[in-house]
């Protein structure tokens, strides 16, 4: 089952990768692409549907105006041309998640085409990715495979279909072949998808949560020997649903292709499925209909004419582009170039912005995200934003430290508790008994005990050797298991002994 791979370095020595991406963006319209049923994630199965979404006999589609406007905005943000007129088409194939057994999509007339996106890599170099097209289509329902292992389609006895997602508006963004990335290919892949995600989120047209499938990436990879112009045969890895996975999947496919080519076999043009657990791909389901979708213009819908006035009206509503936003945020936060690039590369710019908005200073937000959370995310192998730390948690933790309720060491312990699902910071402090001891009563008891235990030291202090106090403080800290405030302990000892500090 496991495919042979070459090391990435060896693959790069021998071959030149060519990439291509199809990124599906789910729009966050209130209703679906062609029906007035709500576009809502995660409700009871088959309740966000009406007859249209179920493909009942006799139904007809009607286009959501907001979805069209969102699509035009995406096209504009990707520096695309907006088609003066375009149409929907039917893509015919039978699959139980597709209620009409055709998908209403755009075929030869996408709403946006010929664009580009400049991607900044971690070292600051800018790589231009050409956009072939951005077209509109509808999402399918959700299949759950039952009876087999771990919900996989392989070995399943039967499947259950929920059509809540059926008809959710999608924009599919397709790149032209991306050449010349070389060994930066995996990094570029991640950076490109991150940039698209950032753009649609910034436009407010998508919730852009990869973990919810709002942004889904199909990554095409092919290799060719260095110096050859003709592209190799490509594989298409489906539904790579986190930024890290995009990077890993591209890297894996490069290594796999290289091994196939090295063995003298041809690469098979096929769909691959990414598996996060094994960090590898497997051959996708055979699609017998794949070669003949019998596209034809959707007769139940009429053409869309995007007048130049309409396009300019929409252009005027576009928010600040992400690159400009980055410049502004860096200035606002007062980060150095290096600090800011680290933040961007770690993928926590949005998180820091949200944390600042929740009440933290720029320095505190950066300290927590870069100092604590990014490392933990790396260990857990997830994107930092997906680790489960809410901005409010950071604000709360920081306040506890500032108020002297806990110290920094305890705060990181509390953060681990939050991530382990033990509750809010306050609850964890309570549960673990972590509070810095500030009630002098128990502290005085511990001090008296320490003084009684070390009469020689007491004499030294009384005799003016104040520095000897460390032994008593150490005894108190030991007795309180480090929870006492050492400064306060010192004060109290001096007070007890009637010595000026």
């Amino acid at each position: 089952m496991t495919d042979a791979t070459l090391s990435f370095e060896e693959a790069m020595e021998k071959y030149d990768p060519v990439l291509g991406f199809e990124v599906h963006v789910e729009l966050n319209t209130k209703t679906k692409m062609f029906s007035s049923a709500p576009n809502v994630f995660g409700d009871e199965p088959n309740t966000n549907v009406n007859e249209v979404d179920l493909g009942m006999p006799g139904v007809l589609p009607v286009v959501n105006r907001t979805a069209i406007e969102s699509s035009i905005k995406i096209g504009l943000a990707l520096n695309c041309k907006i088609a003066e007129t375009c149409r929907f088409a039917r893509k015919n194939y039978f699959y139980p998640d597709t209620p009409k057994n055709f998908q209403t999509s755009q075929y030869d007339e996408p709403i946006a085409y010929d664009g580009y996106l400049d991607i900044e890599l971690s070292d600051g170099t800018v790589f231009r990715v050409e956009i072939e097209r951005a077209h509109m289509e509808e999402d399918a329902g959700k299949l759950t495979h039952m009876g087999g292992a771990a919900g996989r389609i392989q070995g399943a006895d039967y499947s259950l279909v929920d059509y809540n997602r059926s008809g959710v508006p999608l924009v599919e963004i397709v790149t032209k072949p991306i050449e010349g990335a070389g060994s930066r290919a995996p990094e570029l892949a991640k950076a490109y998808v991150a940039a698209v995600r950032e753009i649609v989120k910034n436009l407010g047209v998508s919730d852009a949560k990869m973990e919810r499938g709002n942004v889904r990436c199909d990554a095409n990879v092919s290799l060719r020997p260095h110096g050859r112009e003709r592209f190799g045969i490509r594989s298409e890895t489906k539904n790579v649903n986190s930024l890290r996975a995009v990077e890993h999947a591209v890297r894996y496919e490069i290594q796999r292709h290289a091994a196939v080519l090295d063995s003298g076999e041809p690469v098979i043009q096929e769909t691959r499925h990414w598996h996060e657990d094994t960090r590898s791909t497997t051959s996708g389901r055979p699609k017998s209909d794949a070669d003949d979708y019998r596209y034809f213009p959707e007769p139940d819908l009429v053409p869309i004419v995007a007048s130049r006035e309409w396009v300019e009206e929409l252009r005027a509503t576009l928010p600040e582009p992400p690159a400009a936003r980055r410049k502004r945020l860096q200035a606002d936060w007062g980060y150095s170039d290096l600090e800011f690039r680290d933040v961007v590369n770690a993928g926590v710019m949005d998180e820091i912005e949200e944390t600042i908005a929740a009440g933290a200073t720029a320095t505190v937000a950066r300290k927590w995200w870069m100092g604590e959370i990014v490392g933990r995310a790396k260990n857990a192998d997830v994107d930092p934003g997906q680790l489960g730390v809410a901005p409010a948690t950071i604000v709360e933790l920081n306040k506890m430290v500032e108020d002297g309720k806990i110290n920094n060491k305890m705060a990181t312990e509390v953060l681990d508790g939050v991530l382990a699902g033990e509750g809010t910071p306050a609850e964890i402090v309570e549960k673990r008994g972590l509070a810095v001891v500030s009630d002098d009563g128990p502290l005085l008891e511990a001090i008296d005990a320490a003084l009684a235990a070390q009469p020689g030291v007491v004499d030294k202090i009384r005799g003016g050797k104040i520095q000897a106090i460390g032994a008593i403080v150490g005894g108190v800290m030991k007795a309180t298991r480090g929870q006492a405030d050492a400064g306060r302990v010192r004060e109290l000892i001096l007070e007890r002994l009637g010595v000026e500090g």
Partner: protein
Amino acid sequence: MTENNELIRSSAATLAGKLAAREVTAVEVTQAHLDRIAAVDGKVHAFLHVNTDEALAVAAEVDAIRAAGGAAAEELHALAGVPIAVKDLIVTVGQPTTAGSKILEGWHSPYDATVVQRLRAAKMPILGKTNLDEFAMGSSTEHSAYGPTHNPWDLDRIPGGSGGGSAAAVAAFEAPLALGTDTGGSIRQPGAVTGTVGVKPTYGGVSRYGAIAMASSLDQIGPVSRTVLDSALLHQVIGGHDPFDSTSLPDPLEDLVAAASIGNVRGMKIGIIKELHGEGYQAGVENRFNESLELLKEAGAEIVEVSCPNFKYALGAYYLIMPSEASSNLAKFDGVRFGLRVLPEDGPMTIERVMGATRAAGFGDEVKRRIILGTYALSAGYYDAYYGSAQKVRTLIQRDFDAAFAKADVLISPTAPTTAFKLGEKLNDPLAMYLNDVATIPANMAGVPGLSLPGGLADEDGLPVGVQLLAPARQDARLYRVGAVLESLLEAQWGGPLLDKAPSLTAPSLNDSSSAATSAAGAALSHGGSH
């Protein structure tokens, strides 16, 4: 019984008048038609489902409102209480919708078609659902999975199709009005062969929402009736913009009833389409057609000849576009969400095989033929030559119409090349069957409206002949104006409605002989009836 007979033979307009004047109650009118259905539908088989309880309840509601008087009574629609039959291609809450197919046997729609909502808003009792060729694919109703409908003029003959059930129901006085759908002539051709009136409105003039699609760019719902005025009345109930149908015209509805009441055609130019008569048309059809022309001329219309040279490609282009769209529209019938599911008899039990077995068992031969043909026409490598070329022919046909309507206000032709043929006669010859629609298809290809009205009886067989009127898109009113005039001129000649000459279906001698013959034909054709 005499009174009932009078009720069932009344036009919708007459019934509306009597109801408004409270000379009869809606329950009496509805019951009279239900009684008629009970008496004759065993022979005609126009209905797949009879909606007795709901129809009577709606009628009673109308009567109660009228009896109470006041604003609610004032606001009642003119056709409130006038019953209607609905082609079983149109979805209805509370009654099964089968599309004449086994694949939907027993299925109940959870929603109403827009036209049905409008019937309900007008408080027209729905008598039931009428028979049709499976998914409206046919010209004879012989492709219904529930057995054929019989022509009330001769029970051995076809009532036309696909809307043979609606036409026969109206011709047999089982309903004063019915809804049909017309993709290539399915309202007009049954109208012609049953001596009734049928109208295909301008494409987009009546919402398609809830009509089970055959060919989306050709389908249109329209009225079926015994008089031109009745069709105008019904057209006004169902017509007008619907936001649930993207192809619905935004135009306000014209006053079609007023058009049907103008009463003259003086100075109008009426164009004979050179390509749609003469060779290939039955002599009796041609004779009655010429008589209609004479009558219109005498009434002051100017008869001109127009040529539509590209009409010769219309049938071929239609048999590419229609199956292409149908192959896609019918993909949803797969045994997953609704309707029949059939498991494969052997081999692996995958969803793909269940879909294949379901569609094999659920669809009849004609439906399969068209799906395969459409799949072929859309498939890689053939699209341009087939579907693409056919869409270009559509442009040519539209241009022919444009040129013709530059010379004439309305066009005229026979509706169908022949009178009703015998059940079973063309069943094994799909091409011969397709030729029945040669005169009606061009209107669907171009989206223009068409009306068929009775033109008399053919000399050689004594069966009804239809005359078709065509108008430019959005000019449906012209059809009603000319149609109503021609109808009154013809009826003056006949001394009454043509249907007065139709055999009484309750006379025992006629029925005995014909039902024996038809049941033999029916047994060969049907896979078992739903009655």
